[in-house]
């Protein structure tokens, strides 16, 4: 079933991709234009997608229960981290992220906090001070 869904999505993608590419018609310049290459790539994607619809592989075991929850929470945490990294700054946001991830993976809270602190300070020292790659200081350290 999973492969059939994948196949349908691939076929839909191929259709949208070729339809979108058709709108890039340019009359001047080179003889083939910007739409040509996408028009070559899309049909095999669509055909292979249809093949997967007709002849799918057995389903993988999808994660369930708390594992699925943990994965979704991780993606949400990473999205939030991406958004707050610049305004909040590297040290604080990394401390919180690493502490949360470590705790989620099974460490005790004090251990997780220590891990977060060590990771954030360690990487800040390594990148910002030693290697000279500027990291966002954020409002915590913006003096």
């Amino acid at each position, binding site marked *: 079933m*999973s492969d059939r869904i994948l196949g349908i999505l691939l076929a839909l993608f191929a259709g949208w991709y070729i339809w979108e590419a058709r709108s890039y018609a340019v009359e001047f310049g080179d003889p083939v234009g910007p739409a040509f*290459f996408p028009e070559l790539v899309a049909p095999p994607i669509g055909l292979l997608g249809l093949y997967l619809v007709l002849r799918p592989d057995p389903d993988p075991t999808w994660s369930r229960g708390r594992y699925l929850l943990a994965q979704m929470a991780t993606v949400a945490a990473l999205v939030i981290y991406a958004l707050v990294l610049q305004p909040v700054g590297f040290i604080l946001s990394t401390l919180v992220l690493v502490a949360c991830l470590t705790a989620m993976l099974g460490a005790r809270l004090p251990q997780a906090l220590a891990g977060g602190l060590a990771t954030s300070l360690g*990487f800040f020292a390594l990148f910002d001070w030693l290697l000279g790659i500027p990291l966002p200081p954020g409002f915590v350290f913006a003096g």
Partner: protein
Amino acid sequence: MDIIPSLAHGFAVAVQPVNLLVAFIGCFVGTVIGALPGIGPVNGIAILIPLAFSLDLSPVSALILLTSVYYGSMFGGRIASILLNIPGDSSAVVTCIDGYPMAKQGRAADALAISAISSFAGGTLATLGLTLLAPTLAMAAIYFGPQEYFALYIMAIVIVGGIATGNPAKTLVAGLLGLAIGTVGIDSATGVPRFTFGAYELYEGIDFVIVAIGLFAISEFLVYIEQRQTGPVEQVPVGRRTTTLRRLTYPATSLRAGLLGFVIGVLPGAGATLASFMGYALEKRVADKDSSFGKGNPRGVAAPEAADNAAAGGSLVPMLTLGVPGSGTTAIMLGMLVTLNVQPGPLLFQQQPEIVWGLVAALYVSNVILLVLNIPLVGIFAKLLTVPPHFLMPGVVVVSFLGVYSVNQNAFDLLLMVGFGAFGYLLRKLSVPLVPVVLGIILGTPMEQSLRRAMAASGGDFSALFQSPLALGLHAITACIIIVAILRESRRRMDEAATARSA
């Protein structure tokens, strides 16, 4: 093009202090990356590329850094195989078969030394092969025009699907998706923005670094969440060597397995994992007289390690001479070189020989550094394996964010990376391989350019793509690979149906 004076110039480049330092750091970091299960070479190299950019390394130094990481990870992969019975990366799977039994018998230090020495032998053999083969192949590649290159790129995309294990339809679709992702951004010939949804962040295209780090590193974390083992892993202590280093050297085994590994590495699409399996199988056929393979035979440790290190060296040949990578790791290196305005291929050997020969010389140096690092310091690397992964894996995530952040310093790229991470996780669950996706993204632009150049030269005549004998030959190989893939797929279906009936 004389090899010896060129190589001498190369050594002059390689022994510059900055390059020696970079090689040393690369070897060390590479061994760590290889040793830690869950961070493979592709992964590690993808994370390190942005660092190479932000440190303003010259192209040759950046390339030396990445290749020594690559060689180093081939060395490091065996440590976890031998001590934990968990392969550090996929090419070290076979090393478990005889390495772990040896460690159980109290010969862990011997197994580590054997594998280090045969890794060195395999790596050096491959570097020698690269030295001899690359200039010759580069000279042949001068006859390549745009239509030949187009044919070669198609072959590169298809061959990965033809040879790799698993469902060929999925491998092919992965490569095509990569090509499609590669078309995002402003079309360089006409200035038309394509597939950008009006987001100006996408006008310059999607940086392959963001895709690679998302697909490999972030998805690895998501996979780890559901696969993590509870409880500490038992590690066999390293102990002391029971005999002299001389008696732990297996020259015949290393030579056989190394040669085989090099040839497999040169072929696009195969790579180090296949090489280690084939190297082990060959050695078992040749040397297993008392059927002690699998019970801790030292040759069973030496053979796969020589083969996978040799394959790593071999895989650099098509990347440097033709600009067509055959594996995920070399694809990422190619992407980095293109970003640094260095176009690998035959002209590179003429125009910037210091890059090619500096790299080749640095590989000899790296191999020596790795041997020196890995024999006395193996205890330190073994200690690293005792760090619980719940501290390690979040650290890898943070380094991934840092790497992507350092490219453009914006949140958009980070979100894109997380998106590709989730996408990569779904692909992995559906057994769609990730390496062809990255290969497609990196090859997409040169592939389209060579196609359009060929069409411009012929005035839009499609048949021009099939007129030169060389291009025809390449297309014929591609066709053969597709036929083989179809046959393999139908056989796989039949086997599956047979097992389903008997079950």
